[in-house]
């Protein structure tokens, strides 16, 4: 599933059948290269839902048990959020000091949350090569 397609998707509560918000961003942990949380906008509850609290990531909606799982970001998630840690659009640098381009999209597994591919105009990079993400660049292991 692609990050760019997921932005703006409805987040719906299976308990009340109501839309509780829309997907704003995916919070990625570079060390485990998985999506650990989803930030949600326009909700009456909190702005962050942990991946483990999500029921399913469907092609038309993200389902959660109820709006209560949307909370404020905990410390662990806060550390991984913000533009400094945004992977989409970030310059990609290898551990050999070579710039490969910018991340145009991210492919992730909707079941496990694993980041499988970083899509770049110059070619795809396996998600497992991700080492860290910071304000200047996303670092990946050299091929």
């Amino acid at each position: 599933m692609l990050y760019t397609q997921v932005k703006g998707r409805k987040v719906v509560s299976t308990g009340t059948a109501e839309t509780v918000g829309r997907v704003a961003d995916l919070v990625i942990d570079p060390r485990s290269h998985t999506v650990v949380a989803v930030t949600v906008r326009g909700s009456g509850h909190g702005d962050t839902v942990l991946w483990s609290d999500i029921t399913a990531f469907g092609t038309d909606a993200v389902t959660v048990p109820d709006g209560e799982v949307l909370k404020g970001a905990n410390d662990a998630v806060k550390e991984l959020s913000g533009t400094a840690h945004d992977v989409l659009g970030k310059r990609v640098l290898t551990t050999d000091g070579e710039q490969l381009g910018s991340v145009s999209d991210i492919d992730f597994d909707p079941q496990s949350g694993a980041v499988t591919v970083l899509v770049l105009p110059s070619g795809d990079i396996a998600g497992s090569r991700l080492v860290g993400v910071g304000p200047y660049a996303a670092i990946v292991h050299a091929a």
Partner: protein
Amino acid sequence: MSRLMRTSEVIGRPVVTLNGQDIAQIKDVVYSAGGGAVGGFTLAGRGLFSGPLKQGLSWSAVMALGPDAVMIRDEDVVSSVTGILDASVRPGGSGGNVLGSEVLTDTGILLGTVVDVILEVSERRTCDVVGYEVSASEALGTHSAKVFLPLPDTLSASGEHVMVPAAAKDFVAHDLAGFGAAVKAFRKNLEGQG
């Protein structure tokens, strides 16, 4: 595969941690004139209004010197600048900066001025100065073209002069490709003797 690069390209290159932070940029490249080994770098800040930093980066702390960035593990590997620079070299002034130095034969002839320095980074993670790019004087007879002088053909260097033997003008290369071949041949020769 070892790579040749110009110090003019390395100066100003960002120093990036594995966490994706550009903590500094390269200011000076520090090397020993004897064997050309690069000992490390002095650093400058990255902001629009930042100046030189009090920290330097030892070559041993460099993970990789790539075409777009100098990679380090984390910001803790930078050290105090006095560890990088010898006390007799004064940073800031022309003292010790080989760029702009006159290339002088030991017989007192001016061959030109140093306009760039060529580095070789090998996959064995060594980094050495292998030669100088010289803006030639009339004495070289190349009509102020730029030529390359391999380091082994130089005797010594300071912020004022690079001393070369009188025969050095016979060893100059006229392009980087030819220069690369000359460096390879010289290194092979060294290994054969070593």
